[in-house]
């Protein structure tokens, strides 16, 4: 018998090598207790959370929790059904209504996760003979959406407007084209030049989908994302997002002004063939989304935190993913995987949690310590974080 698992041997070996250095396994951390959006107990120790994507700190918002409890009691713990059968409750409709208002768009469709939203929309709208043009640093859900569909996939160099334009021009003029972009790229926290990219896409007759997972609620005048900030939201045919970051729960969505958008509810398989979100989840999401419409104070504080952390880490001598703070993600570039794991562990011992990101999920084979800030981090916590980074970086000898 051929062991179908032998193909995973290199991966198993990579992990064994890492663990043999004596480092704590970075991928089996348990949050024993969660005290707030920014503090949890890990290994019995109070730990500042700096790697959660909980940008707006909505997870413990009083109104959000009350809405969830109320829905749990009124509608029960789950829908036990697909959105197209018995799984659409009043709460799912209200959540979609909140999204339409938030984005000021005609249509909104809620999926069980953001991953499924990309998977479903991309695989459904780009069919045989069509082309999907994607940035090579795209999120796994975008790649998987391409792999699941029947269209041809054309990757182009990260954030390279010229590379995108050239490829668009080489495609048959009359073929259906979907350009998929992200507002914020989550590995390095850099922004896409959406203004130029949307322009060249439209000139080539392509439809545009923008994944704004990492910008909702704090980038753009109304928190609609990088496409709003750069003034091209009206030219974006589809915006995909998630409830698992700024909104503070779980779920995904697509909003659009396309007049025929509703047909997506029948043709997106990851929408049809899976159970809908529990009533408590859509109730918390709707409440959170409505509160995010009025979150300008929190937004300003989040930006202040990002700027302070970025400037502070740079001054300490760390190498960062972006020259300037562009989003609420700050990626600290590690010299290699072993050192990265050592700094990660030293930070955890200091009581600071960040995301360790390793190849192949990272661009150019980098090892990154990804920090994501929260509007609920106090200015004192940010100073604390800098002190912990300084001690950990010096202990490992990378600064």
């Amino acid at each position, binding site marked *: 018998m051929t062991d179908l698992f032998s193909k995973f041997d290199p991966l198993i070996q990579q992990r064994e090598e890492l663990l043999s250095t004596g480092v704590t396994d970075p991928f089996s951390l348990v949050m024993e207790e969660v005290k707030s959006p920014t503090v949890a107990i890990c290994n019995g120790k109070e730990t500042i959370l700096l790697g959660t994507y909980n940008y707006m700190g909505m997870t413990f918002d009083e109104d959000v929790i009350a809405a969830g409890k109320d829905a749990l009691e009124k509608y029960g713990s789950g829908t036990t059904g697909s959105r197209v059968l018995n799984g659409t409750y009043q709460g799912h409709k209200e959540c979609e209504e909140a999204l339409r208002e938030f984005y000021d768009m005609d249509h909104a469709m809620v999926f069980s996760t953001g991953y499924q939203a990309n998977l479903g929309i991309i695989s459904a709208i780009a069919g045989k003979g069509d082309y999907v043009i994607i940035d090579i640093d795209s999120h796994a859900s975008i790649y998987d959406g*391409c792999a699941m569909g029947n269209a*041809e996939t054309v990757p182009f160099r990260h954030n390279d407007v010229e590379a995108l334009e050239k490829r668009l021009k*080489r495609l048959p003029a009359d073929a259906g084209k979907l350009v998929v972009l992200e507002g914020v790229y989550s590995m390095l926290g850099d922004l896409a030049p959406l203004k130029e990219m949307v322009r060249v896409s439209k000139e080539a007759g392509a439809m545009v989908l923008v994944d704004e997972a990492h910008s909702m609620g704090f980038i753009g005048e109304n928190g609609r994302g990088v496409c709003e900030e750069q003034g091209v939201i009206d030219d974006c045919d589809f915006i995909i997002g998630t409830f698992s970051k700024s909104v503070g729960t779980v779920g995904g969505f697509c909003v659009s002004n396309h007049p025929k958008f509703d047909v997506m509810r029948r043709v997106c398989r990851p929408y049809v063939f899976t159970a809908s979100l529990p009533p408590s989840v859509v109730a918390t999401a709707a409440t959170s989304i409505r509160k995010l419409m009025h979150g300008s104070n929190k937004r300003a504080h989040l930006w202040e935190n990002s700027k302070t952390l970025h400037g502070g880490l740079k001054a300490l001598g760390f190498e960062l993913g972006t020259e300037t703070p562009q989003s609420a993600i700050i990626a600290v570039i590690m010299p290699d995987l072993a050192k990265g794991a050592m700094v990660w562990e030293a930070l955890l011992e200091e009581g600071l949690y960040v995301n360790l990101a390793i190849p*192949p999920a990272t661009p150019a*084979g980098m090892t990154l310590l990804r920090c994501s800030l929260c509007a609920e981090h106090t200015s004192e916590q940010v100073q604390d974080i800098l002190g912990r980074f300084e001690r950990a970086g010096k202990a490992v000898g990378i600064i």
Partner: protein
Amino acid sequence: MTDRNEMFEKMKGLIEPFNKKGAELSDETTFAGDLEWDSLTVMDFVAEVEDEFDIIITMNMQAEIEKVGQLVDAVMKLAE
């Protein structure tokens, strides 16, 4: 139409800067096995080839191309 030998020589020239191992190049040379390219190197190289011949090699096509000879044939077809 370019003749196949000419195309093969051109392709060799494009591969050379990425041929860190100094592997011998023939029609049978494989990208993953002999050249030991990872996915990032493949992406950079493909972009290079696309721009050189003003063509597009979709990911779907890339999945079918394992050897240098197959790439030469594919590019000859695309550049026609």
